[in-house]
């Protein structure tokens, strides 16, 4: 007897599990049982499981009987002409959805030619083993699985048209590629996915060549001419939001040009772009620290202050200004109300991003890299026909990663571009390499994709033949303009007096534990001290008791609050962090005393 479980609940047992499972499946195919039912017989545990719960991933397969698929060519034609639908195929028991567990009981053939009598199912298409992103990679069966994974991840970071109504949206941190193109080398999935409506890359001419060392270590060199013609150009959008909050006592924020009396008034220059309503105008050219939404808030602790002072009873400045390192044009302004009924102003800033050193680009095969140089068009190597590549790609990026798909795409792209047609690069089902080579030969090119090239600086011919062709390149959303950061001096933390952390707040770059070790290992003792001077302070110490003394700067009076003013008090220079440590020790009832000594 074999136990049967329905959705993990024991419901009974059967004598002959195999036959039981078989009958259930037949009845499901005859639509007597629901189609979302899956059943398996687990040989190891000798149990039957029936699954009907939600949330299982299932996929369609063609049912096979005695080595013959139930989906005949006649049915296929009917399906093509629209006489029958997919649902009818399901109801007729030609196709069924199988979950991961039932798959264990199945024998699935990848191709129709592989079918034997033992097979129970046939794959609809071998591409179904891939997901959406990975099936968008052409010739991916010629590359390693790890590169395929990387390639799929990279496609998600590519800038394109992420939404066709982007002009009406207020998304944070988005980009739109200016001249996006449909890939010359596409896959079956591009059509299904309607990639044409939202492409995320451009077709470029790529040459596999090292050039002056600027494309070492995965860097790429861009042709300045291509950049000027619009390659990789994108717009970066960022919204700035401000809301008129309501406070107790009927007070509210006000979106206006702040009055000069307002506490925290910046400067007239910062407010220059605001119109009468306190909001910038569309099309204004804004730079960092410019106010885009002027706003004032009621004073804090209103009641208390009124009694003591008149001056403090003014409104506070709470405008929204452009973040550090950003800028651009005001693209769109939306003035609405939010769910609480407060007035809400949203301003979208658009910034044109021209490719620059450090911007990240990638092909669809996990071959990512940053721009190492943008060289003038006249210095870009050219072929005998006068073609100048848009990108110079380092050949050292190929052997270690074995991305053959990348190479084949270049060949296919070249053939497709020259013939003026799209090349199908669908995984397992692509135009074969031999055919591409034949076509190239016919077009009068070397069949291996290489061409004679010339050094444009010296005019000399390169000894090697250079592999050159067309490939679909993606601009990824990581741009230096969003990441670049440095500071000399700036805001510090209140507690430790050390610089604050983070780019957004204009923080410092940390000299960490290991960096410190480097200074030590070099014996650069005084430099080490200087680098840690960010929180140095001068404190006064009583020589008598070893505790911190008081120094009244304006009276130039020094005294120890314990020993009085008749003791010797000396200034010392230490890090504020150490002063904090001593204070914390005192709070732990440990009394640290400083014994002073002249060291130098």
């Amino acid at each position: 007897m074999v136990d049967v479980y329905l959705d993990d609940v024991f419901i009974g047992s059967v004598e002959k599990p195999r036959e039981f499972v078989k009958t259930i499946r037949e009845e499901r195919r005859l639509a007597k049982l629901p189609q979302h039912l899956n059943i398996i017989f687990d040989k190891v545990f000798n149990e039957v499981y029936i699954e009907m719960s939600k949330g299982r991933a299932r996929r369609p397969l063609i049912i096979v009987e005695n080595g013959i698929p139930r989906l005949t060519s006649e049915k296929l034609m009917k399906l093509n002409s629209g006489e029958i639908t997919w649902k009818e195929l399901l109801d007729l028991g030609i196709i069924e959805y199988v979950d991961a567990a039932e798959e264990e009981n199945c024998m699935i053939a990848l191709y129709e030619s592989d079918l034997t009598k033992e097979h129970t199912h046939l794959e609809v298409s071998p591409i179904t083993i891939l997901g959406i992103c990975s099936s968008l990679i052409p010739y991916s069966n010629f590359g390693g699985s790890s590169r395929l994974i990387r390639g799929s991840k990279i496609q998600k970071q590519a800038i394109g048209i992420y939404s066709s109504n982007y002009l009406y949206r207020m998304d944070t941190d988005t980009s739109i590629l200016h001249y996006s193109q449909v890939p010359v080398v596409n896959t079956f999935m591009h059509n299904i996915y309607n990639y044409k409506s939202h492409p995320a890359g451009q077709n470029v001419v790529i040459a596999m060549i090292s050039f002056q060392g600027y494309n070492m270590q995965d860097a790429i060199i861009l042709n300045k001419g291509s950049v000027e013609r619009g390659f990789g150009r994108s717009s970066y959008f960022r919204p700035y939001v401000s809301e008129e909050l309501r406070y107790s006592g009927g007070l509210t924020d006000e979106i206006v040009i702040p009055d000069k009396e307002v506490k925290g008034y910046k400067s007239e220059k910062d407010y220059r772009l605001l119109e009468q309503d306190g909001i910038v105008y569309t099309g204004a050219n804004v730079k960092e620290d410019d106010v885009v939404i002027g706003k004032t808030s009621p004073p804090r602790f209103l009641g208390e202050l009124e009694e003591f002072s008149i001056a403090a009873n003014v409104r506070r400045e709470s405008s929204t200004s452009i973040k550090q390192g950003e800028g651009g044009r005001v693209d769109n302004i939306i003035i609405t109300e939010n769910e609480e009924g407060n007035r809400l102003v949203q301003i979208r800033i658009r910034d044109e991003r021209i490719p620059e050193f450090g911007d990240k680009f990638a092909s669809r095969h996990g071959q990512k890299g940053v721009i190492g140089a943008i060289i003038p068009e006249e210095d870009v190597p050219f072929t005998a026909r006068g073609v100048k590549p848009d990108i110079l790609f380092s050949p050292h990026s190929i052997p270690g990663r074995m991305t053959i798909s990348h190479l084949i795409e270049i060949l296919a792209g070249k053939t497709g571009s020259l013939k003026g047609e799209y090349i199908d690069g669908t995984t397992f089902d692509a135009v074969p390499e031999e055919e591409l080579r034949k076509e190239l030969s016919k077009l009068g090119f070397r069949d291996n994709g290489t061409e004679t090239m010339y050094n444009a600086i010296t005019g000399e011919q390169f000894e090697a033949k250079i592999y050159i062709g067309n490939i679909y390149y993606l601009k990824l959303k990581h741009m230096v303009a969003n990441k670049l950061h440095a500071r000399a001096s700036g805001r510090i933390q209140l507690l430790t007096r050390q610089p604050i952390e983070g780019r957004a707040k204009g923080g410092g770059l940390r000299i960490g534990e290991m960096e410190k070790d480097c200074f030590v290992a070099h014996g650069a003792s005084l430099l080490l001290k200087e680098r840690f001077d960010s929180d140095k302070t001068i404190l006064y110490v009583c020589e008598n008791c070893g505790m911190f003394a008081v120094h009244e700067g304006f009276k130039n009076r020094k005294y120890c609050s314990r020993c009085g003013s008749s003791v010797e008090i000396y200034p010392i220079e230490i890090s504020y962090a150490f002063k904090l440590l001593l204070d914390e020790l005192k709070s732990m009832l440990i009394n640290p005393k400083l014994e002073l000594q002249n060291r130098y």
Partner: protein
Amino acid sequence: MSKTLFLEYKGIIPDKILDDVREAINDKRIDNVKLKQILDDVKNAYERAKISPGEAIGTITAESFGEPGTQMTLDYFHFAGVAEMNVTLGLPRLIELFDARQSPTTPRMEIYIKNKFNKDPKKIRQIAAKIKETKLREISLEFSINLAKISVEIKLDTKKIKDVGTNFDIISKAIMQDFKGVQVLKEADTVVIKPKPTESSLREVFRIKEKVKDTIISGVKGITHVLPIKKENEFIIICAGTNLADVLKIEEVDDTRTVSNDIMEIQKVLGIESGRQAIINESLKVIEGQGLDIDIRHIMLLADVMTATGRIRGVSRGGISGEKESVLARASFETPIKHLINASLVGERDELNSVIENVILNQPVPLGTGLPQLVVKSEKKK
């Protein structure tokens, strides 16, 4: 003539190196001018090899271990050819060594045999069987209780007894040593154990039946597996488990070459200098096994520091790092509160003589450019 020249350099070049030079030029005809040149070159080379005062050798050593350490494979197990003989290598082993753990995760010994015996594989197998710890269960076929006679009957495996090289007398002696007051008799292939006839003897029989299985009949305690292998042109025995003291007592074992991978055991049996060498050897084995290259002087420095006090201290909270002089230095490395409170209880002074304390205080570190100090002779007051 040349003797005076050598005397001239005494104290400038260490005696050991001078001796080496003397030996090297011993039978060659070299005149004094050339000899002086040689000695000058040696002197220069020696001076160059010296490390200048204030060089942060500790930090450099730490970095020299730390950087290649990032390239090491984690959890790397190496099979030494035969199953059941996998050894911890890689980073885990290095950490284990520098922490000076009491016993390695995979204790291992390489037993060399004296020249007389190490060519004959048969003899080696015999020695190996002698070394291997054998328990009674391994040479027995069946353990049973005879309720009528109130005794334990053990059927022995005669073939295995021969392999191990024991006999009934040894077995009975071993049993009698473990269980006081029992009677051991021999009946053909069977050993009969009779406890003292008392009231509780029946319960005693059951107890003996289980316990007697683990009685060690022969071999060295702790050696769980042995594996004779051929190394170059001799046979050696590799074994899992270590017991250096007892193995070295065995007559056929070559006590000059036999090694264990347990640094603590080596230190206990052979002394601290051997312990230092063991640390160097074992670390080198790991580093070379990973295909890395760390200068041996770094390893030597580390081994020196670990063994300088006469016992092996690990580079950890309980070892070197926990025994630093400075309170602040100790507190900056693990369990700060413990160190601060203990220091305050006894009123410890921190002389601020080392690196970390001065970094905390933002003072120049007494290293490199921070080390030299200016001494000014002031004019005497009249």
